[in-house]
């Protein structure tokens, strides 16, 4: 594990971190990787199916929504969070320079 690798990840995640933050993070990685190494040694773990949900989903017809159009957000609701708009259209940052 290197600081450079972590910098690459932070860049992908779209934020910057300072040197002392990287220092703490490197120590945390030492611990995390050491702990995970022990998990890797659990006999037969490679044969276990990964669990992504607490229990089997109970999906039947009653869990399906009616296919009806709903539009809950009005412009008036939305504008409280909008910094800049013109003629009921939200101004977004320029994408193409």
């Amino acid at each position: 594990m290197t600081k450079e690798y972590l910098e690459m990840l932070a860049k992908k995640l779209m934020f910057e971190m300072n040197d002392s933050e990287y220092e703490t993070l490197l120590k945390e990685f030492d611990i995390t990787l050491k702990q995970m190494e022990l998990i890797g040694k659990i006999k037969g773990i490679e044969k276990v199916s990964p669990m992504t949900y607490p229990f089997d989903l109970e999906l039947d017809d009653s869990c399906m929504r009616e296919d009806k159009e709903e539009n809950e957000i009005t412009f008036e609701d939305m504008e409280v969070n909008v910094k800049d708009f013109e003629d009921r259209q939200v101004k977004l940052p320029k994408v193409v320079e």
Partner: protein
Amino acid sequence: MTDRLIDDIRKELDSGKITSQDLFDEAVRKAHKYQDEYNSFVTILDKKEEVKVDTILSGIPYALKDNISTKGILTTASSNILKDYIPLYDATIYKKLKEAGAVLMGKTVLDELAMGGTGTTGHTGVVKNPWNKERMMGGSSAGSASSVALGIVPFAIGSDTGDSIRKPAAYGGIVGYKPTYGRISRYGLFAFASSLDHLGVMARSVKDVSYVIDIVKGHDDKDMTSLPDEDIKYIEHLDDNIKGRKLFYIKDALEIETSNDELKEIIDNFYLTIEKMKKLGVEIEEVNFGKELLEAIYPSYNVISCAEATSNNSNLTGIPFGSRIDGKNVNDIMMKTRTEGFSELIKRRFVIGSYVLQKENQEKLFLNASRARRLIVNRMNELFKEYDGLIMPATEKVAPLFDEASDKLSDEYLILGNHLCIANFGGFPSITIPSGFVKDMPVGVNITGRAKEDYLVLNLANKLEEVLGYKGQVKNNE
């Protein structure tokens, strides 16, 4: 009056001795009075919602954790990146409470984005413990816990991804309940780790928790992970006979050689507690869970929760969500917004989450953590064939002093301090109730049961609460 139990408050309301407005005013007055000292709230409301219905909760004030959507009311998740966010819709849990006539009086402080266990990382400052201001409240539902413990409200709503309701409940001497995964709709809860996230209730008795759960549970078309409706009221099963029920505790987590007096006293308190449970006719046995699995709990939780959190919070960029910081182009805006919007702890967790999801690391890290999760849940389900529930000390220590509190990872295997997230792994209903005092600070006992058997967990906890003698406990500093 807001420091009393729901039945007492209801009686006074129904007799006309007090009004809902009186209760709201009292809760708001206390909230302001304690705010500088304890910092329970991000927002204290000044106007009462008016819903005229007739339910057990109608007219009764309560608080919501600030990661639950409330249309038109600031909802920050205690993060700078959402410091100005005003939701466009109501969370289902808030809608149900509103429809039942319960009166929202404030939004409570949490650890930033619910990702912490100390109550010290919210953007508006640390939450202090009502029993001792030098000590932390624990988190992440810190403000919800302190608002109940201080007697500001009779109940508050929290969320729980690893132990975020049940740990601060123990530190605050109150009851904290996380029901079965999917029992309460999460529509409108800001996601932290979706496969582990639960909503739940904090109050001063098991009965009060049950009143609230009966109102907020149920299937929701807006949350496909919510469970189907069940034809049962938990409140009606609180007094069921528990004679002959069987519980286990994890021997290999409790057999600790330690010179730590606090830990010894907590373990002694636990053994006294189970003796009282046995006198109720409940059989309690010790079980070896398997040290390998116990040691896998915390690292697996860390890896899974960080991975899910990284993904869930990728929309906080300043473009669709988040307080935007201007820049010369879209990338610059996102970079600045996220750099300034997230605290150090959050960034570290996101980097860990991203690392474990990288193609080259996924197998050894994310997938192995998810495999360990299955082994732990399988072991629990195997034990649940013989036993009705797990009983354990809720925490391994009392609320730590602020200079002891840390959200940095430790390489100590604090099994006793991390077992609560087993219930998040398997979606098991799990409750903490107060069981006494160590070092003049409250401690709690936890009961975890089979998935979808919420009524039984509440029933067992209610019976135990009756003999422990801490029902209605409040640290009234007025």
